[in-house]
């Protein structure tokens, strides 16, 4: 490939990538800006950063006791000592994240509880059902597999309202179970499907020899299924956590009293509360809500990309 064509491809890809990232850049930028700055322009270096740079610059050239002009949130400016000014700027930077954190912490914990328990349930049920249904034939095994796969026909929009009625009748509204049980029930289907097709491709001799050694279901699962299917587990778990983390409507509906909000429904509740008046709080909340998945992303990108590109995803 010619050098110019290569350059053109890089320029195109980088442009598209930056456009994709633009809203995220706004998000991070606004975490540190006051409402006044927000109204002045949609994008600028935060005043607090500029102020800190000014204080640091003054300290660097030596006149560290010269008073500095500091503009507060209301736009009134006054003179103060550099140390005091730095404190004011730090408080300005910290304010949005601190307030957002105070509101979001319980939501974050709820999200973690729900998504971890769901992922655990889905991967245990999915892998064991996938293993049983791919390796054994017994009365009803076919029917069970069809029962699993047939649920893919039913879109969420069909079952949303009746599921709500069901959860309400079971007395599960405003509990973790209102989320975990339906999530596991739905999530295990995809997991079973993926594990089933993975185990089908494994040679029977593998299982046969272990059975000869007297291994039962548990032994086979523990010694063969688990170690061999680690990449499948990572894809299933990551996809599941992503789904749970992003699901906004169900937690929003089943938390009638707001006591069990998760991150996404909590963000929406936040956006309709009085906190929405403070833009830095809101944008800090968006940023904080992205951190857990960012951590997951950093650790799991490689296995995830490998799993996704393995060719299992086509119709």
């Amino acid at each position: 490939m010619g050098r110019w064509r290569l350059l053109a491809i890089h320029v195109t890809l980088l442009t598209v990538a930056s456009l994709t990232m633009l809203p995220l850049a706004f998000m991070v930028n606004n975490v540190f800006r006051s409402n006044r700055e927000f109204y002045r322009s949609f994008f600028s270096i935060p005043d607090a950063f500029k102020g800190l740079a000014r204080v640091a610059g003054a300290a660097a050239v030596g006149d560290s006791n010269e008073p500095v002009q500091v503009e507060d949130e209301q736009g009134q400016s006054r003179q103060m000592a550099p140390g005091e000014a730095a404190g004011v700027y730090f408080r300005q930077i910290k304010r949005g994240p601190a307030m957002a954190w105070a509101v979001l912490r319980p939501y974050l914990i709820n999200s973690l509880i729900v998504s971890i328990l769901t992922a655990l349930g889905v991967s245990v049920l999915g892998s064991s059902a996938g293993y049983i249904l791919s390796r054994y034939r017994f009365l009803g095994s076919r029917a069970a597999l069809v029962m699993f796969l047939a649920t893919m026909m039913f879109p969420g929009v069909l079952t949303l309202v009746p599921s709500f009625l069901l959860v309400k009748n079971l007395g599960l509204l405003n509990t973790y179970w209102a989320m975990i049980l339906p999530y596991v029930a739905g999530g295990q289907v995809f997991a079973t499907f993926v594990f089933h097709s993975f185990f089908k491709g494994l040679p029977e001799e593998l299982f046969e020899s272990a059975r000869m050694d007297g291994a039962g279901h548990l032994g086979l699962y523990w010694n063969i299924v688990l170690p061999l299917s680690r990449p499948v587990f990572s894809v299933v778990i990551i996809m599941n956590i992503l789904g749970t983390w992003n699901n906004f409507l169900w937690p929003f509906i089943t938390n009638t009293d707001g006591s069990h909000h998760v991150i996404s429904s909590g963000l929406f509740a936040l956006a309709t509360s009085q906190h929405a008046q403070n833009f830095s709080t809101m944008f800090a909340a968006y940023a904080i809500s992205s951190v857990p998945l960012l951590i997951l992303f950093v650790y799991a990108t490689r296995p995830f990309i490998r799993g996704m590109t393995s060719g299992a995803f086509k119709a």
Partner: protein
Amino acid sequence: MIRPSLRSTLGCYAIILPGIVLLLTFIYLPVVWAFSKSLQEFEVGGPARFVGLANYREYLTLDPTCWPSVLNMLMLTMFAVCVRLTVPLIVAKLIHSLPRERWRHFYRVMFLAPIVVPGVAVQLIWQGMIYADNGMLNSLLSAVGLSGWARGWLSDPHTALAAVMMVGFPFVGGFEVLIYYAGLSAIPDSVNEAALLEGCTGVSKFFRIDIPLILSQLKLILLLTVIGGMQGFEGLFILTRGGPGFKTTVPGLWMYFNAFSFQRMGYACAIGVLLFLAIFALTLLNLKYFKSAEDVKGES
């Protein structure tokens, strides 16, 4: 596949039982309820009255939102299909054509990275940052002297639907890129070499070799996008709540409002059933008429 002994068969049943119970309770029971309760009229906790097909008749003939909202849904879905079948594919092709694996990995990670931001946050950022009165769009317009064009993009009846469509610009979903990329990587070297020998390169190779060979990926994305477009309404709920007027209302959103704002549970179930039937029919059509490379090979 082996036929296990009796004892081991009981073990098999015991292992798959919890999953089956969850499936029956939380999926099959709601599916049955969706149909049965769509024939009733009731509020949550209130007495139910059997009304036959009245809910369906009311929605299809009397409800003023019905056809406008179906039209909105079709426009949103068609737009989504157009962009998701093209933009991520082009990006995947560009990434795939880079000679160095390091760069290919770098770009795949770059385009996947935005998935860490929850969908709700993305919608709220677009609402509060891009489309807001003093947001990016209006600021840019007044910066180039077109301040007359500035408006509340999501509240103006003329622009609301288009504004909703454009959320997510430039529409490069990380998942789709990965899926297309996987398809492109799976094209055998022998095919690529033969194409090169025949002098088939660049755009003509893209259309004559690449696209026919990744039809199964295109089909998957098409299916997912159509299903998602027909039933999705979370974004609309966050961005516009269906307004202004009913300009951005879709049947799914109307179902939500009927259930959870107007307490018309039976009516909501009827809308859900109709949506399910439409999605089901489209899925069958899609599977029947849009054949993937494997199917074609299997028949010849």
